[in-house]
């Protein structure tokens, strides 16, 4: 198979899923595997996390890291997925792109909320405060507000297709917050430490903390894909319901 044929096949597969019936079939077959992977990864991750040694400085509170850091990563990853979906709506006009964006927004809000709440519960014993207006925390709070704003905007239109373009444009505009969150610890003096896992050289974290953290991050990613596919399926169903209701109303109006 030539590279061109392989690329064409990939593209046609992606467009093939634009058909709602085909997408529903795809989602129905993939969701059980994603669910099993999520449960297994969480079981392994939680076992590893709860058996990790205490940190010499932070004591047992280091356990909060295993749920706080993946939640913060997923808050940013979900927004990145939404931004790619927004590009899909604006540039490629893929019918599933808007469905993906709408389905991901509440999930992103949930992960961001968890990052803020668990961060606060970690901050109190370590920094002596529940909240501080430092660059990292403030930028994550702004991300949470952006999520809420996008959810509100997507629900503000009667017709979902009318909301697609404005929501996509607003999503892409809001993407500016992602590099700000990522580099806030380098650009400003904050209570947070600089990046310790995603560095160009090797991670500055002992393996006994790094491995449980990475397994928990994989569990969160698997959970995101499971819930995202499930939410997309719900969105496709609600659009079908809407169009059937419209048809029924129209046929009643004619007769």
């Amino acid at each position, binding site marked *: 198979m030539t590279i061109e044929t392989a690329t064409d096949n990939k593209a046609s597969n992606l467009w093939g899923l634009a058909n709602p019936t085909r997408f529903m079939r795809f989602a129905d077959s993939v969701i059980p595997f994603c669910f099993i992977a999520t449960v297994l990864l969480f079981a392994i991750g939680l076992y590893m996390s709860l058996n990790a040694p205490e940190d010499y400085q932070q*004591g047992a*509170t280091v*356990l*909060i890291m295993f749920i706080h850091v993946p939640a913060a990563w997923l808050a940013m990853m979900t927004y990145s997925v939404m931004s790619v979906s927004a590009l899909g709506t604006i540039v490629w006009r893929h019918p599933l792109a808007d469905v993906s964006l709408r389905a991901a927004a509440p999930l992103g809000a*949930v992960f961001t909320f968890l990052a803020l709440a668990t961060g606060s*519960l970690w901050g109190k014993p370590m920094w002596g405060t529940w909240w501080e207006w430092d660059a990292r925390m403030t930028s994550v709070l702004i991300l949470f507000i952006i999520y809420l704003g996008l959810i509100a905007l997507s629900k503000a239109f009667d017709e979902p297709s009318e909301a697609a373009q404005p929501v996509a444009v607003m999503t892409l505009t809001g993407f500016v917050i992602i590099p700000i969150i990522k580099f806030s610890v380098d650009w400003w003096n904050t209570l947070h430490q600089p990046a310790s896992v995603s560095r160009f050289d090797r991670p500055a974290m002992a393996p006994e903390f790094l491995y449980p953290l990475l397994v928990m991050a994989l569990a969160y990613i698997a959970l995101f894909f499971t819930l995202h596919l499930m939410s997309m399926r719900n969105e496709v*169903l609600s659009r079908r*319901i809407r169009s*059937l209701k419209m048809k*029924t109303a129209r046929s009643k109006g004619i007769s």
Partner: protein
Amino acid sequence: MFGEYAPFIIPAYSLTIVTLSGAAILIFLNYRMRKAELKALEEKFKK
């Protein structure tokens, strides 16, 4: 188990587990409701 930090660790884990499983259950229930609604509508539309 978590010593003096138990009042912070237990709520953090509980909140995460409750929120994430709550979201999963809510999405699943939503699916069941929409599927049932669609089925009822399709049958109504056929008639």
